[in-house]
């Protein structure tokens, strides 16, 4: 008995002590997803993490160039950029030939067939299918001739009729598609580069039925090998991936950084991709520093562990070959006023006073280690319409001016002003951010209360206009300022994306006129004007345009931070020699 117990304990200790050997034979990469994903159905890939996974197995007609900035579209499943009619309403797309779907029991003999025009048209109808309630429908809602009518008609049926023609979706031949829009929609090609419109095969959808979300069958560079819904995802290189090559061009300086060293090589460069779901920051950080994870986004408390006051990587990390990537994000944080609340609706001076009293320098130091930039208005840097020289006169810390404006607003030293509640989500950092905001505003006599909510509660309060103020962040869906300006467009008010219910008829007219224009200097000038008008109006207390911090190990090649990451992994590579050598340091 004693021997048996000893053996048992011994074997347990042995099992615990046996760590997995690192793989130096395959080009394998380990990534982290900090949130669980909503499966692999492209039409529901609304969050960044689901999109990243969908983008490994599925592809769209276009994709964002992995290295060029500002962001530039390049053909992916499409052979070229489309030909567009003079009125900007008819787009003709030529699809690549010889693109194969992954092998799947959904196809005859289990062999993936060639993707064609029908697949793309089926994908577009599927986005509109009222039974599926695609999260990506907003991109095409009221945009394509006949598609809304098709959607409405099928809403009454038990199963949508995909055979019924749609005026704006036309197959010219097996590899050519024509799409007619109702009105100019300059963001249309961006919509075709988003995972929602990544091409699926009808046979695969029908074969897997409701389980389609767990059995992706795309044309992408990787094939799903294992999907434990909240543990790990494993992909292998798609052996039948078409002839797609690493780009030979990038942004200026990319060549010197070695980012184009793999130019001309067939994609994907990796043999295997493993995604680990790790929610908490400590295990993420520790796994990276044990070289069990290859790329890591740094947030919150880990920022100060990573960089010094000059925003350089700390020496202890440099010595291991770790590299830091600091990249401004296309996003904005804000404290939104509810413009239907009489307190804020017409009292611009109150809003301006609150903005002037907010100590952004303290907030930047405390929450972002000075890596963020003070948002001057609604459009973040990096998008057309942002002017570097423009400084919002109300985005500065000026207590005296704030007090003066508050008195002019009718509340000298805050007298007569009721307490203001700012709603946020039930997270420590969110609470701390409002507490710092409250501390700032206390100096001019304004009392701020914190309203803590679960995420559903917060969304409900915003969509039902049951808030005075709330705080949130918005990230770009695509690289067009329209995506940010729309947050203040009156027709988008709650339950739409304009949660502050801001309405300014002049701004709305400008928005309508500008957002149907193609990306031209004229449109950029209009965006600039709108951005600066909004800055003076202070519809929100503008917060920050944040910076993304990523760490990679030295053996990861071709990494460049990209806002729209879904196609990125196919361009990454691993230097196995460097990995073998440097891994000893971890």
């Amino acid at each position, binding site marked *: 008995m004693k021997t048996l117990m000893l053996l048992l304990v011994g074997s347990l200790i042995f099992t615990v002590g046996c760590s997995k050997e690192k793989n130096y034979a395959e080009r394998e990469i380990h990534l982290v997803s900090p949130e*669980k994903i909503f499966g692999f159905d492209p039409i529901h890939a609304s969050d960044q993490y689901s999109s990243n996974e969908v983008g490994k197995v599925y592809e769209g007609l276009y994709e964002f160039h992995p290295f060029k900035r500002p962001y530039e579209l390049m053909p992916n499943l499409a052979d070229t950029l489309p030909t567009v009619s003079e009125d900007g309403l008819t787009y003709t797309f030529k699809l690549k030939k010889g693109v194969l779907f992954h092998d799947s029991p959904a196809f005859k003999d289990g062999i993936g067939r060639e993707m064609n025009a029908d697949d793309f048209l089926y994908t577009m109808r599927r986005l509109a299918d009222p039974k599926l*309630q695609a999260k990506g429908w907003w991109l095409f809602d009221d945009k394509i001739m006949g598609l809304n009518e098709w959607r409405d008609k099928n809403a009454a049926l038990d199963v949508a009729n995909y055979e019924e023609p749609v005026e704006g979706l036309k197959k010219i031949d097996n590899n050519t598609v024509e799409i007619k829009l109702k009105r100019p929609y300059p963001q249309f090609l961006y919509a075709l580069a988003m995972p929602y419109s990544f091409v699926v095969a009808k046979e695969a959808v029908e074969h897997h039925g409701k389980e389609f979300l*767990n059995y992706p069958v795309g044309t992408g560079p990787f094939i799903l090998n294992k999907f434990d819904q909240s*543990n790990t995802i494993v992909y292998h290189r798609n052996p039948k991936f078409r002839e797609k090559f690493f780009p030979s061009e990038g942004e200026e300086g990319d060549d010197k950084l070695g980012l184009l060293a793999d130019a001309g090589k067939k994609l994907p460069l990796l043999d295997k991709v493993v995604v680990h779901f790790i929610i908490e920051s400590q295990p993420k950080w520790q796994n990276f520093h044990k070289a069990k994870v290859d790329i890591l986004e740094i947030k919150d408390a880990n920022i100060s562990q990573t960089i010094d006051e000059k925003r350089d990587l700390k020496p202890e990390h440099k010595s291991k070959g770790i590299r830091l990537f600091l990249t401004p994000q296309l996003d904005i944080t804000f404290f939104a006023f509810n413009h239907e609340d009489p307190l804020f609706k017409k009292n611009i001076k109150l809003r301006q006073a609150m903005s002037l009293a907010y100590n952004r320098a303290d907030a930047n130091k405390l929450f972002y280690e000075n890596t963020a930039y003070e948002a001057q208005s609604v459009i973040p840097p990096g998008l057309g319409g942002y002017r570097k020289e423009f400084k919002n006169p109300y985005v500065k810390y000026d207590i005296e001016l704030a007090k003066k404006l508050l008195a002019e607003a009718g509340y000298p030293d805050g007298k007569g002003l009721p307490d203001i509640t700012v709603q946020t989500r039930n997270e420590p950092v969110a609470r701390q951010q409002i507490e710092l905001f409250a501390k700032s505003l206390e100096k001019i006599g304004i009392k701020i209360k914190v309203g803590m909510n679960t*995420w*559903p509660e917060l969304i409900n309060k915003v969509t039902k206009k049951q808030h005075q103020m709330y705080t949130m962040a918005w990230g770009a869906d695509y690289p067009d300022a329209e995506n940010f300006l729309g947050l203040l467009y009156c027709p988008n008010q709650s339950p739409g994306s304009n949660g502050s219910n801001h309405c300014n008829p002049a701004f709305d007219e400008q928005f309508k006129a500008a957002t149907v224009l193609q990306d031209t200097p004229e449109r950029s000038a209009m965006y600039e004007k709108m951005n600066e008008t909004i800055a003076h109006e202070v519809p929100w207390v503008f917060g920050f345009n944040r910076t993304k911090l990523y760490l990679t190990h030295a053996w990861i090649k071709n990494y460049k931070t990209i806002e729209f990451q879904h196609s990125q992994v196919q361009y990454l590579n691993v230097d196995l020699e460097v990995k073998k050598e440097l891994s000893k340091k971890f």
Partner: protein
Amino acid sequence: MAKYIIRRLLYLIPVLLGVSLIIFVLFNVIAGDPTAVLLGKNATARQMADLREQLGLNKSLLLQYLDVVKSAFTFDFGRSWATKQEITSMIKQGAYPSLCLTIPAFVISTVLAMLISLVVAFYRGKGIDLFIRLLCIAGMSVSALAYILAFQWFFAYKLGWFEISGFEYGFPDFIPYIALPTIVWILLSLGPDVRFFRTVILDEIYQDYVRTARAKGLGEIRILLKHVLRNAMIPIITYTVIQIPFLILGALLLENFFSIPGLGGITLNALNSSDFPVIKAMAILSSVIYIVFSLISDILYTLADPRVKLK
């Protein structure tokens, strides 16, 4: 006893009706409209209205309540609103890692706590008793999060004795992943368990029958193990068995920090995404398990003390 068991199982009916009503009221009256959360940041008013219709949220409250009752009695929970996954398979997939962690941790911590309690009861009032009681109080005074962070940092990251996080399905592959969270669980449980068991054992130790046993010349160890422990079993069974349903529901904090894909995370995600079918399934499941285990504890009473009759 059979009659008693049947009657207790029949209690499930009103309990499930009550649980269904409570979660229905909480979700439909207090939580509000889930469609904005489910459709994401770009949802339109029209789309939200369509989804409400599709999810059956426009039906009368009575019909909606009957749907909840139906799923409570058929255990057909359908699919998650948020992830679109089949809820039964989500539960099955989450239950395995949760149980891989919680069962060994629970068994070891309970047995260890019993042994320590017997020792401190044996040496009651002496130095070792005081020392262990102090340790228990000190241990309970530190938050669970501090243990988790410190142990993960020191034993997994610094010393490399354990995996930092993750999980592998299948025995013995999961052992390296659950070993450290199991140790943390045991440490967290020992304080309250030892204090409770010690109190229960000491309550018995001063009873007349113990004096009688001593008068008959029985040794202290025999008295403790054969007489005191047996009589102390009823509160111990109640305390222990009633914890079992919570094992099945997972250990949220440990699962989160050690990236164990258990049921704790599933419930939390469902709450954060207004995923009513999953919330409903977890609430109903936990009620059923709770009732079944309270029944088991009743049956165990009769084994521990033949004087107890189940009527």
